[in-house]
């Protein structure tokens, strides 16, 4: 059973922001519900209000321009990302990463905003978006601000979001369009599972970046490396940003090993 709460479904962005401000601290945003309803069911989260974000038009858009790059509304689902022709063509890493999340049933509901705001170290759209140099647009009644995704994640399941703020859009720079890419996600089983280790690489003529999941309190990304980098340089850069732990899924040693292994494989494929 889920505890009692009030479900509200505002139709306008401003109404959503006002409601969030009014009930700050007591309200949670409900997107696909694939994380939040699990938390509520477990009793680890007991909000008094659930504010459904799925009726806000601004959060549903996908837009691309040569000048501004790609913009994805926070309530866009994994399925929409996987199928979108521009994303498939210009940001195939993202389309691939969205396809790595859960099962078909989950991808039909799960949103990019929910994936990032849960801020799990294993978020598949975390490591991949970081490799692509994404930024996050936050909004509240106080206005909007844009921050690098690197700064958005602050700890295990923690972000820079204030109580009255939402993620409005996720922004990908135009220079990441068409980047060569690769992603490896290690799971315990062939079916749907969270990442034991995930590594996503994006490379253009100007930079190479590696996003890594499940190896630190947040998804992390290397500094920009100058291509073509050697495997040793990339591994060294990765080592500087990860700090894996032993947990139910794998040991620290195994994670360190798999990060190196995946970087080697992906670099060979990119070459």
């Amino acid at each position, binding site marked *: *059973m*889920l*505890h*009692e*709460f*009030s*479900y509200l*479904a505002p139709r306008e962005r401003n109404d959503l922001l006002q409601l969030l401000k009014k009930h700050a601290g007591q309200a949670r945003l*409900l997107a*696909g*519900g*694939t994380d939040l*309803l*699990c938390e509520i*069911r477990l009793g680890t989260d007991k909000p*008094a209000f*659930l504010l*459904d974000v*799925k009726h806000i038009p601004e959060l549903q858009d996908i837009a691309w321009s040569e000048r501004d790059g790609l913009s994805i509304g926070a309530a866009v689902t994994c*399925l929409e990302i996987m199928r979108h022709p521009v994303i498939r063509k210009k940001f195939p890493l993202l389309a691939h990463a969205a396809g790595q999340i*859960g*099962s*078909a*049933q*989950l991808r*039909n*509901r799960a949103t990019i905003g929910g994936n990032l705001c849960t801020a799990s170290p294993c978020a598949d759209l975390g490591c991949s978006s970081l490799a692509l140099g994404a930024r996050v647009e936050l909004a509240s009644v106080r206005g909007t601000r844009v921050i690098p995704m690197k700064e958005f994640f602050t700890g295990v399941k923690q972000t820079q979001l204030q109580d009255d703020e939402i993620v409005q859009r996720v922004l990908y720079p135009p220079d990441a369009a068409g980047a060569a890419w690769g992603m490896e996600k290690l799971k315990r089983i062939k*079916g*749907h599972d969270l990442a034991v280790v995930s590594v996503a690489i994006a490379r253009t003529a100007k930079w190479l970046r590696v996003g890594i999941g499940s190896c630190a309190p947040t998804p992390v990304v290397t500094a920009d490396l100058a291509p073509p980098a050697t495997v040793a340089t990339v591994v060294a850069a990765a080592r500087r940003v990860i700090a894996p732990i032993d947990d139910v899924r794998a040991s620290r040693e195994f994670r360190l090993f798999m990060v190196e292994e995946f970087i080697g494989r992906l670099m060979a494929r990119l070459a």
Partner: protein
Amino acid sequence: MSTKHSVTVTVNGKRYTREVAGNRTLLRFLREDLGLTGTKEGCGAGECGACTVILNGKAVNSCLVLAPEVDGATIETVEGEARNGKLSKLQEAFHRNHGVQCGFCTPGMLMSVKALLREHPKPTVDQIKEAIEGNFCRCTGYQQIIESVLDATGQLKPKKEELRRV
């Protein structure tokens, strides 16, 4: 404290309106408010797929959807399969190929496959596996389910068919 919501849905072609609390899941709504108990609860947490229904054309875990979220929606459940006591083509194929053992996963399995077949009327084995990745079956080992889907779509190799008739 939580107010009631009026929810109107079309389930398997029939319209229903009910008053529900905000914390009612779609799964409980179907089972307890509409009496459609074909859809099962396994984990209640998005893992097992026993609760899969088709919501506006897409397979979803009904345990992770709130009833007030689906006001105005079209929903398909396993109860929409058989007509006048006659199994659907897909159900018949599951029956023929031993795609059902205890049957607990079957209602969800059928809905995942039904959603797949709408997009891919002749799915490959890989497409079938991907579509049922979120549907756990503890009995069949999946092979018979995959064969059931191949059979339903006219793709089961005749050799296997003969073997099974022995």
